[in-house]
């Protein structure tokens, strides 16, 4: 599986494939999504410390959920990668903490959520997604480090502080600045 950056599909590509999954239950389209994302979800879960077998199993479950709940995915509310990230994260936390509360909290917050804030999948929205990717490249070394430790290793602020030999407040301000940097432009959406 060779994925070069030049051919990296954008958000509208996934939105079109998802539309045929939702409307026609098109297996072909779904498997194209699967081929792209399943290895990434698996890698993400392995990074969080899951053994190979469990990472595979949870990645399959994540993608299956997408097939079953395709109608829930609304491209106007976020990228497909974000939807998959959220589901994989929740499945992992559920397994780790055996605390099914987490998933239901998320769903409840989503339901109570900002439907009125929904914006259509505009060119601006797609540009934002591309912009976010390039902003990630421009994080400072230490910001990239604390972001990776948070998202890919699920380390708490104290754990990061301990590991990097940094005061807790410094870790928090690096995370804060990294987030503000990544968010510029995204936050301006109405």
């Amino acid at each position, binding site marked *: 599986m060779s994925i070069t950056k030049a051919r990296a599909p954008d958000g509208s590509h996934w939105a079109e494939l998802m539309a045929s999954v939702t409307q026609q239950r098109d297996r072909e389209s779904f498997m194209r999504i699967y081929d792209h994302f*399943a290895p990434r979800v698996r*890698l993400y879960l392995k990074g969080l410390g899951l053994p190979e077998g469990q990472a595979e199993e949870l990645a399959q479950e994540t993608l299956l959920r997408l097939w079953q709940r395709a109608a829930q995915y609304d491209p106007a509310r976020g990228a497909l*990668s974000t939807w998959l990230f959220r589901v994989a*994260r929740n499945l992992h936390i559920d397994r780790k903490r055996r605390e099914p509360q987490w998933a239901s*909290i998320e769903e409840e917050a989503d339901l109570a959520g900002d439907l009125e*804030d929904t914006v259509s999948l505009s060119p601006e929205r797609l540009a934002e997604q591309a912009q976010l990717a390039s902003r990630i490249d421009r994080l400072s070394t230490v910001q990239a480090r604390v972001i990776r430790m*948070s998202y890919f290793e699920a380390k708490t602020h104290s754990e990061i502080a301990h590991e990097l030999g940094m005061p807790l407040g410094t870790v928090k*301000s690096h995370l*804060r600045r990294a987030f503000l940097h990544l968010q510029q432009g995204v936050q301006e959406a109405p």
Partner: protein
Amino acid sequence: MTPRHHLSEATLVSYAAGALSPEMTAVAATHLLDCAHCRRLLTSAESVGGALLERQQLLHAPADRHARLRQDMLSQLDRLPPQDTAAEITAPPAGKPSDPDRLPLPLQPYFGPNWSGLRWKWAAPGLHIVRTATPGPDKLIMLKVAPGRAMPVHSHQGSELTQILRGAYDDALGHFASGDAADLDHDTRHQPVAASGVPCVCVAALDAPLSFPGWLARKLQPLVQL
């Protein structure tokens, strides 16, 4: 209820990343239920997770392994019909029963389902608390401060994340009312004073023992034992 004090960006990022302790998560989730502002920021912190997921550098997985998983997925697609989720999605949140005795859902695993079931223990004059047994290093407690009463001045070695559930308090950082979060840094020293009228009830997650600097506070610490 529109909260005016919010979760910090660092807390939201870690919540989105699934990297907060369970206790901090419970408090943050309670705030998020009431706060559209923080839910919006959370969405954007989650999209960072999505972008990172997308951009991972893949190593070449063994082709036969991927083929096997792929085949396994294909065979499951036929067996699993789509779930009828349309009703679920459009169900109005207002349809939820809003029993005033119900504790916020994220707190229920720790404190039980109802306000009336809380077992308050006297901790100091004007202060009652409910402790929880948590397996990790973080602590999760519920505090009830009598109207007009002050908590001792305290600072923290770690972080303190508090959500105000009922009533209100004031400190040097401002007025904190029901729905507000106080997401405090380790170097914050403060002395919350409950507003008059009704008791102020908060839930707080602490990731390290508090330190009490003043002589009076040091006298109080054994009483409060936070």
